[in-house]
């Protein structure tokens, strides 16, 4: 469980980081909090030629309120998000979800950008992005672009990033007509969810993103429509049949579907007011 040899680089600017990515021609990986990447390297599941440590890129760290959106630097840690007054005020869903992400020690180092770039299907942040209709600002050798969360997550550990770095995340500020719900089911506090859901209700429309259930954070449009139509819960839950639920040693697809339904019911019951 020792990582293979690698170069270690610590660029001073985003531009320099992008240049290094190009220089290594796909063989370098950015390093954020290292809470996923370091174990992967020690397991020898990842063997980058170089690590490009983003730690000194102050432009990637911070929380800025910009009229109707909040802009969060990719290198902002979960702990910083959890303790930030603007986040608490404007993104209530974060306050509901952050305590469920791992434990203090990991939240101190793990970053929002790292979580999104990793795209772990059981992670909370990707689902939050979907539910919040967030935009992800990325920068690469061909310049900057903005991707909607709906277009960002392509599969298990797979994103739309194309040799690019995540720079920041743009999240709409909560509006008075919005309510938020979150529920996740884990046997032990801080574990990845067996099933979970994040919900944003705007007037009578819903964005509900499930995590821990399929190969990626997943919205089920028909289920959202059923919620909007105020259908009874049984027919709402029937729309989960369309999800390709994961089978693994912790739970088979039947259990996962059942747990996803329970998470949804409980999240709906606990919506913010």
């Amino acid at each position, binding site marked *: *469980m*020792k*990582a*293979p*040899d690698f170069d270690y680089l610590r660029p001073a600017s985003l531009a320099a980081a992008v240049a290094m990515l190009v220089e290594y021609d796909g063989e370098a990986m950015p390093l954020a909090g290292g809470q996923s990447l370091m174990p992967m390297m020690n*397991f*020898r599941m990842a063997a980058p030629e170089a690590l490009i440590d983003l730690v000194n890129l102050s432009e990637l760290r911070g929380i800025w309120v910009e009229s109707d959106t909040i802009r969060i630097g990719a290198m902002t840690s979960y702990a910083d998000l959890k303790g930030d007054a603007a986040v608490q005020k404007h993104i209530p869903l974060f306050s509901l979800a952050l305590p469920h992400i791992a434990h203090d020690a990991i939240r101190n180092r793990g970053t929002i950008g790292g979580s999104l770039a990793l795209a772990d299907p059981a992670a909370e942040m990707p689902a939050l992005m979907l539910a919040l209709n967030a935009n992800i600002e990325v920068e690469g050798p061909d310049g900057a672009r903005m991707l909607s969360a709906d277009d960002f997550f392509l599969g298990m550990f797979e994103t739309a990033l194309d040799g690019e770095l995540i720079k920041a995340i743009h999240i709409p500020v909560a509006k008075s007509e919005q309510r938020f719900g979150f529920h996740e*089911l884990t*046997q*032990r*506090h*801080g*574990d*990845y969810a*067996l099933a979970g859901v994040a919900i944003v209700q705007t007037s009578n429309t819903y964005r509900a993103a499930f995590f821990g259930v399929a190969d990626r954070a997943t919205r089920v449009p028909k289920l959202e429509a059923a919620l909007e139509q105020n259908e009874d819960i049984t027919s709402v839950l029937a729309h989960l049949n369309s999800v390709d639920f994961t089978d693994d*040693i*912790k*739970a*088979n697809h039947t*259990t996962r579907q*059942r*747990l996803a339904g*329970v998470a949804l019911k409980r999240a709906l019951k606990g919506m913010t007011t």
Partner: protein
Amino acid sequence: MTGPAHIFDKPNRYIGKPEPRADAARLLQGRGTYVDDQKLPRMVHAAFVRSPHAHATILSINAEEARAATGVVAVYSGEDLAKHVTPYVGTLTHLAGLRSMPQHPLAVGVARWQGEPVVMIVATSRALAEDACELVYVDYAELPAAVDSETALDTGAPIIHSELGSNLAWERDVVVGDIDAAFAAPDVHVVERQFRFGRHTGVTLETRGTVCDYDPSEDQLTVYYSGQAPHMMQVIFSKHLDLPEENIRVISNDVGGSFGIKIHTYGDEIATAAAAKLLKRPVKFIADRFESFLTDIHARDHIVRAKMGVTEAGKIVGIDFDDLTGIGPFSMYPRTSAIECNQVLNLTGAPYVMENYRAKGRVVFQNKTLMCQYRAVGHPIAMAIADGLLEDAARKIGMDPVALREINLMADDSYPRTSATGMKLDDLSHKRALRKLTDLMNYDGLRARQTLARKKGIYRGIGFVSMVEVTNPSPMFYGIGGAPIASQDGATVRLDAGGALHVSSSITEQGQGTNAILAQIAAGVFGVDLNRVKVTTGDTATTPYGGGTWASRGAGIGGEAMLQAAQALKDQVLEVAGVMLQTGVETLDIQSGAVTDIDGSVRLTLADLARTVYYRGNELPNDLNPELIATRHYRVTDFPFVFTNGAMAAHVEVDIETGFVKVLHFWAVEDCGRVINPLLVDEQIRGGVVQGIGGALYEECHYSPDGQFLNATMADYMVPMASEMPEITIAHIETPTKTSILGAKGAGEAGTGGAPAAILNAVNDALSPLGASIWQMPMTPERILASLNQADCN
């Protein structure tokens, strides 16, 4: 010997007191010395290429690139090391019929479990050794694997050792009375269940590891070893590496948990010693977490079909069961892998009066990691069978489970006696323990609240276990069968010139506070302040000869040796003091570091006495030859083991929508005889309960049908964590064992042995209004949901 003895008739400053352990500050400040902290000049590092297959012929090994890789010092195959290490076989003569085959440190010819070491790389760093491992090309021809214990004995199943003709390692039948007739009697209700106990493992905080240093000038091997039995390892290294026993020194400094994991012969550790001898330089091997999961012994792995018969009035007439235990491809050396099953055969139902008993045990080989003795060997299985069936029977005849136990538990005044299986029992207190438990938990109140909660759709359950624990084993456990495992232990107590005690013992410290209780006993019995006792354990060169710490024997056996040594030294010192003070020994005592009159007034400090003896012997009469050192050894006689007992209860809530179980509270009443340090005993019980909850609810080694270990990381293997653990309330009954003066029995394994049964019973109590029940551990959400679905279908 019989007690209580005179030392406990007067107030004692230390034995029985909640003294904080002296080494806590050192360990918490990061000043411990674990194996990985050992850094020697010219030390090199080992890593292993391990079999990726559960069962495969090794056709060829190409290690040329690895040999040439940066930093690589040596590369060894199984054949290479077989020239220097004689093979070992995990059988013992008292387990009649037990079969296994010779094992080599690295696989020779055939690999028999995924993770078995195949090639050893020694390099200047562990990272470089791992790099080189990737350059070794092993050509395997995969063989069909026998993974599932249930089919391992079928005709046509892949045979792991063709020489043995089948995968049966051992079997034993126990028959007492006439169980068929007892079950057939009118008025008898029989409950029958199939239990499944998954595999789990020890997950020690400090992983296994060793630093082996060979000095050719003296033909001396020094082994730094994270483990529990230094003298046993000394014999094993000597025997298999062809070195004189006395030329091997095994040192266990701090050990970060062991739980029975680190008391066996592991190929990678033996290979490390062999490499040190061949290279004539120190070699370090520290298992990483992957290697721990794949190669540390696993535990349990039982499938049990069991029946209990109970009369309408609630009298247990007998138990009948069949246990199938999967042990991996070999019986572990030198303790064997048959003890787990044997304990189940011996201990099931041991708290209860019962005339009929029939048990069959079969131990089978499989292509999985080896299974062997882990904390509370066999106990959780035995307790879950008997107490699981007991509560099932209670539901069937409509009787409260406590009332049913009251009818059947052995009476506290009925000892000495034997259990149905012939185990000799004495000094037990089942009924008092159960009563104390029901008081402690306010049983009636809890039941009333449970009924209220059910009305609100909240499913809570209360479950119990009455249990025994095997502790303080005599030579009948291992030594009788030919194992190089001492059943006696020794202690030495030395008075130094400054008036302090230096004590040493052959029992070992692996984090549980062994050294602390040794100091308390020495200080208390001899009569110095606790901070004036220095303890040495874990070094074959400097401690008396003995067995180490396992089977909950440290306090009971090593503690008694320390008591007797401290008493012997006290007698010697008083004799000298009597001469120096010109007074009769019977008028003197030792208190707080001074020789005193019986009333406590100081006559002479120990420092003054010792300095006179050591520096100015001329002041003493010529015929007085004081030795200010004493050694005593102790073993248990008359009994094969000293049993302890306890009663435990769990209160759980089952979320019937998700299948999640929350343990709301756990209570344990334990009778471990004399409590030497209540803080340490409570933490042993608490830690044991947590490990028991782990086995009941969380921990499982998952395998694919072809024998791939599926969850060998801490992210996927679920250990119990603090946030999910309940309040654990502990109380004691002290029935000292008559086998020693100290009267201490063991306490280290009770929680692990008892908790799973209590949790199982509590979950089934919670599920019972829904007509569901579960008999498989761990009780995962999915399995609980399945049992609820099953009940819905019925």
